């Protein structure tokens, strides 16, 4: 019984992490067909923002949930104005430019923070459940990811901003004809996506020893999750995160973390081969 609970928690955690790291990329890809390959570095910057703020005395929750998203959101704004703005509609070019940005940002981080690891400790202690040790922080992460998904869905569905954003995504010309500036919408969307990435980085930072190259471990998974999910932002990301989270946890349990990773990757290949438009290209079509 305890084992079942712990296993469920592990799977939920696995899914939650995928959601967390993919949310920012999903917003930007789902809305604007922009693939931001610097997404991992945005997370890294969120992590550093959290650590620096916490070490300067700011409450860790504030650092993670407020400071990190704001800092990275601002950086995202600058990058959008300077680079991304000129590349809308050019999918491959945005991938290449953001890849360049990812390298550049890593380089800058190395120059500022050096190659050594830094970190802060998790604010929530673990506890025991029967014969198992459970990491309390995992709950926090699961909750944050649920809130992100709910918040995202509500924002897109019920707020004016969400409606305008969805409209622009469907047809930017019509949105412009109605008086909304697509340029502004894209800018705001990119900032939101960056902030989400910063949030992810901030929340995950206490779990790792942060190095400038930390982001690169996540970009592949985030990218794969988003593409496999398909065009719908929330539904797509959720469905692929659930599948991948489940597969990777089960295989990790059976054969260890590396096989868990490999299983995730193989599943991605199979999924994409069968559903070339992503999951929501075929199922849940038209959902948010």
């Amino acid at each position, binding site marked *: 019984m305890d084992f079942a609970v712990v296993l469920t928690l592990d799977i939920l955690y696995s899914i939650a992490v995928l959601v967390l790291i993919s949310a920012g990329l999903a917003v930007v890809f789902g809305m604007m067909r922009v*693939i931001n390959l610097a997404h991992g570095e945005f997370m890294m910057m969120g992590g550093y923002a959290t650590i620096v703020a916490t070490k300067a005395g700011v409450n860790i929750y504030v650092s993670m949930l407020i400071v990190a998203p704001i800092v990275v959101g601002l950086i995202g704004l600058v990058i959008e104005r300077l*680079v991304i703005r*000129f*590349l809308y509609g*050019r*999918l*491959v*070019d945005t*991938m*290449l*430019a953001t*890849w*360049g*940005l*990812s*390298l*550049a*940002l*890593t*380089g*800058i981080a*190395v*120059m500022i923070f050096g190659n050594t690891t830094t970190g802060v400790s998790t604010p929530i202690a673990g506890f025991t459940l029967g014969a198992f040790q459970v990491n309390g922080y995992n709950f926090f992460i699961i909750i944050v990811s649920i809130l992100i998904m709910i918040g995202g869905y509500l924002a897109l569905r019920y707020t004016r901003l969400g409606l305008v954003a969805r409209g622009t995504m469907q047809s930017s010309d019509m949105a412009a004809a109605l008086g909304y500036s697509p340029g502004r919408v894209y800018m705001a969307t990119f900032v939101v996506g960056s902030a989400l990435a910063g949030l992810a980085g901030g929340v995950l930072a206490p779990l790792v020893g942060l190095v400038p190259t930390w982001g*690169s471990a996540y970009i*592949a998974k985030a*990218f*794969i999750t988003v*593409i*496999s999910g398909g065009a719908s932002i929330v539904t797509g990301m959720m469905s692929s995160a659930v599948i991948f989270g489940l597969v990777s946890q089960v295989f990790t349990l059976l054969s260890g973390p*590396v096989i868990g*990773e*490999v299983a995730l*990757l*193989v599943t*991605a*290949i199979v999924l*994409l*081969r069968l559903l*070339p*438009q992503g999951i929501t290209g075929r199922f849940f079509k038209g959902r948010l």
Partner: protein
Amino acid sequence: MAGSGMRDVLWVLAAGVVVMLVAPFVLNYYTLTLLLIYGMLAMSLGLIWGFGGILCFGQAAFYGLGAYAYAISAANIGESTIPMLLAVALPFVFAGLLGAMMFYGRLSDVYLGVITLVVTLIFFRFMNTTAGPEYTIGKARLGGFNGIPGYQTLNVPGDPGAYIYDSSLYYVTFVILLVVYVLVRLLLASPFGRIAVAIRENESRVELMGYDARLRKTVLFAIGGGIAGLAGALFASWAEIVTPGMFSLGQSAEIIIWCIVGGLGTLVGPVLGAAALGYLKFALGQQTAVDNQLVMGAILVVVVLVLPRGVVPSLMTVFARLRRGRPARRRRGRSGGRADG
């Protein structure tokens, strides 16, 4: 091959021979050979991407496969000829299978990119875990993160004792690069090549003409894989060790950056891009003031924004404009080269 195409090839060959003879006065053989290997690797992607329209995010997978195939078979056989052949054949076959899986599934663009990226990731992750003694093929231990050292490097065919290294490896590699270049140009000028370029332009129209585009893309992709494998095998002889890093995402990224910077319209562009950036990385590595990733990244961003077709095509346009005194034909965006270009 059309007259002008033939002339271009001869010019490139002549220039190549000149560079081959002059370069050792500028740089040492060791570094030069690596740049040549990078050039060949870049050419493999330049072929399938610039001419075939196939954006592969995991070209490093075939590079690594070639290297590992060479290392493992050389360690077991003790002579380099068969390993070299295997190092081309294995990536060729694997790329063919992977290509068939993707192209017969009508995958394209981003989704193709993701799958190729995932494949290279799988190799990378898997190879990193093969540290234990149970991961052995014949006499070769896969060695996990540390890779495989100590195998027979390139020798004169038939004579395992006559090693080809340093200056002779440089010349051999250069000649191989030039030979591959000529062969690829011949391929592009052949009907197969012309159809491949047409597929890049408009796949459905080519199918309506009665050609099987999926098969042709698969073959082209396999050829690209084989060339990348050859580069990997040469690397194996040059470095005397093969490591999982060869499969890394970073390596795949570099290959793409070489092609972008060098320009996708030609075969020469990517080679020059690889040589230039490879050298830049080497030079940057010697100093600590500016992080080399920062420079590379900045270059990529600037090139994409300012010279979307890459350096070589942009230079060619300027050159042509100056020569003819009127605007030369311009092609917008990242369209690739013609079969005779």
